[in-house]
């Protein structure tokens, strides 16, 4: 198989396989979570569920609580990474071309300089988080193989994508192959690893808020 054929496979069949695994795995996990069923709470409701649930999703995503130095670093670097990842994923023109081809609609891209900054910040934050995970004794103890694997699976698409935009290291065809390969790996692995939190985070937060809301507690 020459590089052109490999690239063609990755843009076609490979992507179809990855999308199938990703979507199947994710719908299964999310729906299974929702259908696990909560025992009917027989107590009289002291407050609503939906409002506080959504409020908690919002608050936990954007309001910074008081934290220790370690916590602060983790939170700031974590947010930088997630925000940068989100911006490059949804606002780089090439990604919008892709999404438009799949979903039938697109939106305006951000200028390339903004994308460059987002990508660099995101990469730097990921590296900082890895180093911190390794040198901080507590985090190190809590980390297992899967954590490092998840890190790598997230890091590679960002890195290869950045190299592709800047033409670093290999020629365009090879870089595009590497980028697609890393993205498809991520898609296949996501439903089976902690990376599934890309969706479950929000339902979990909602659930916390909803439970508290039901009890009339401000979460």
């Amino acid at each position: 198989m020459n590089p052109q054929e490999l690239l063609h496979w990755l843009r076609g069949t490979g992507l179809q396989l990855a999308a199938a695994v990703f979507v199947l795995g994710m719908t299964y996990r999310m729906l299974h979570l929702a259908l696990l069923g909560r025992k009917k709470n027989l107590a009289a409701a002291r407050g609503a569920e939906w409002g506080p649930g959504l409020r908690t999703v919002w608050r936990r995503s954007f309001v910074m609580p008081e934290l220790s130095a370690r916590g602060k670093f983790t939170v700031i670097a974590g947010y930088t990474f997630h925000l940068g990842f989100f911006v490059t994923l949804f606002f780089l023109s090439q990604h919008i071309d892709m999404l438009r081809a799949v979903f039938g609609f697109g939106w305006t891209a951000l200028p390339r300089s903004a994308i460059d900054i987002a990508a660099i910040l995101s990469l730097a934050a990921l590296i900082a988080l890895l180093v911190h995970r390794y040198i901080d004794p507590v985090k190190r103890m809590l980390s297992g193989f899967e954590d490092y694997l998840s890190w790598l699976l997230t890091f590679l698409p960002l890195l290869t994508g950045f190299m592709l935009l800047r033409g670093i290291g290999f020629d365009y065809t090879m870089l595009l192959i590497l980028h697609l390969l890393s993205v498809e790996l991520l898609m296949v692995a996501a439903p089976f690893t902690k990376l599934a939190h890309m969706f479950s985070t929000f339902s979990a937060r909602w659930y916390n808020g909803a439970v508290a809301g039901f009890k009339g507690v401000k979460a």
Partner: protein
Amino acid sequence: MNEHETLGARLAQQGISRRAFLKFCAAMTTMMALPPGAATAIAETLLKAKRPSVIWLSFQECTGCTESLTRSHSPTLESLIFDMISLDYHHTLQAASGFGAEKSREDAMKDFFGNYLLLVDGSIPLNEGGVYSTIAGRTNLDLLQEAAKGAAAIVAVGSCASFGGLPMANPNPTGAVAVSDIVKDKPIINISGCPPIPAVITGVLAHYLTFGELPALDELGRPQAFYGETIHDRCYRRPFYDQGKFAKTFDDEGARNGWCLYELGCKGPTTHNACATTKWNGGAGFPIEAGHGCLGCSEPNFWDAGSFYTPLAAPTANIAAVAGAAALIGAGAAVALSAADRAKKKKKQQAHEKLSVKDLGN
């Protein structure tokens, strides 16, 4: 053994001055992307070189490659490039026909055995014993295998001879294959393109004459001097690509401003060819200058690699349908397994047993 005279002798006969020849070599140097100072050295060697015999076989092709070559713009191609070689067989260009033509091919193969250059355009059909393309009653496969035996080197001209080309496009009814799929024991150079740039064909010939061997090749057997860089590497619209300025349609503001054609399906980034610098039609321009993206015609598989108008970033297959089906299956599985879990839970509750997470189908 028959011998052709040297190029120098031939030029002297025709009264072509050394200065004129130097100028021709300057043109060749540019063409081959050699350092500009090399012209004088090339002139020295070429003058002493013996004109090699060339046999050109045309198989499953459209004659576009020959058309391309005869429109080559180097200083009077007819008098100089064809002066540099002795084209002993080319069934489209030669005057002879019938048995006479086939005889000149056989003579050249005998007289210059081991020394002639074999040029091939078109792919070779293998299905049904190769009957899809025959010359003088013999299949292309047969002719190629015979001619390859005594060739010093083989030049596959065009994407069909190099990689299979349009005849090989899905579902490939004739079973077309490339020259390199058949001949394994000779040096082969692929001059891909649909058609290849004429200057590249003549440039490779000039290189062979000057250095007596094929030029440096890339991993697909193409001369690095011409295929070492992508269209995108040398595209004058590149600054717009880097700034993220793209034409969205062929007639919008961006298109009028000459912005990058990536979103209109340009394959320049993954296509290795010399169009952006050598250009076409005597340097008049190349497709991107005319406002159309590159089709990727010099790369293997370009004929089956999805639409010419799909951006490289977009998938070449239907992702939405697959994802939709996967979502349905995933949802179905979740509902079914949850129902099973509930039943299990109920049973255990009734039996007053403990239920752990491990019991649930997660």
